[in-house]
């Protein structure tokens, strides 16, 4: 197991988590890159962590939360300065894609706790115990939260499909 192959293996699922947690592809990409960079730095300084996957998810979760707060703080200022919120060309271009926009809309309908739980549960290589550790809750609490989140997600998807 070397750092290059580990990063390449982690990147797709971590990126999916970050995009969903941040609510946009551009910011999610930035968050995922920061998390992977932290992993690479840690790996080269101190060797591999016990669970690289849990390591990057923990960093990404923290970074995504900071990014959300920063956006909430500065978005009104940017909107006042520019007349509308700035989102960036690349972000806009990708957000125009229907499937991503729809998925993000589905996730916005879930509570923050449910959203985090289901996003971590989406990674099949991240064990539920590790995912519980990332969220700082017990294993059983995580499983219960995922169970509820899946049902709410299914319900929201059905509603969205019915409205079409």
């Amino acid at each position, binding site marked *: 197991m070397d750092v290059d192959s580990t*990063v390449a293996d982690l990147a797709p699922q971590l*990126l*999916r988590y970050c*995009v*969903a947690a941040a609510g946009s592809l551009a910011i999610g990409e930035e968050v995922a890159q920061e998390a992977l960079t932290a992993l690479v730095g840690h790996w080269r*300084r101190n060797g591999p962590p016990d669970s690289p996957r849990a390591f990057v998810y923990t960093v990404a979760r923290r970074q995504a939360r900071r990014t959300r707060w920063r956006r909430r703080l500065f978005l009104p200022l940017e909107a006042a300065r520019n007349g509308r919120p700035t989102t960036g060309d690349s972000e806009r271009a990708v957000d125009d894609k229907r499937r991503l926009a729809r998925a993000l809309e589905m996730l916005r309908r879930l509570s923050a706790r449910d959203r985090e739980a289901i996003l971590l549960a989406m990674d099949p290589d991240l064990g539920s115990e590790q995912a519980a550790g990332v969220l700082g809750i017990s294993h059983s609490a995580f499983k219960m939260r995922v169970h509820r989140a899946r049902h709410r997600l299914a319900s929201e*998807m059905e509603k969205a499909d019915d409205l079409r």
Partner: protein
Amino acid sequence: MTYDDPTRAEDRLRRELDPPESVVDRVVRRALDSGAPEPRRRPFAWAFATVAVLLLVVWIATVRIDPEPSQVTTAGSTAVPTITNASGLPKIVWPAQTQETRGSENRPTQVVKLSNPDGLLMLDVPQRGLVVLGGDS
């Protein structure tokens, strides 16, 4: 569409959230590049710096701080004071060696008694005796 099995909804969400390959590649490449180790510093830089600091400390301790005052006015010294007449007042100018010495007993104002009888200047220097300067002869 119904989702009797909630994991189907999750699978669909996962597919919709799948990032483009190009973005994945970019993130991996940047992470590996930015997490590259820093170039090694000079291995003996700390040793050099430590030795330099120690040498500086030793130099200050031995050269600049002299606990024993120099005995410039001992026998055999050529440090005879010279006298100039600036602004009408006698002024004692000590040789450089004497001026740089430390210790209060070597300071001119404390070790020299100046008198001027009969046009002669007599300096009473401790440990050196009476030094007579000036005069016509």
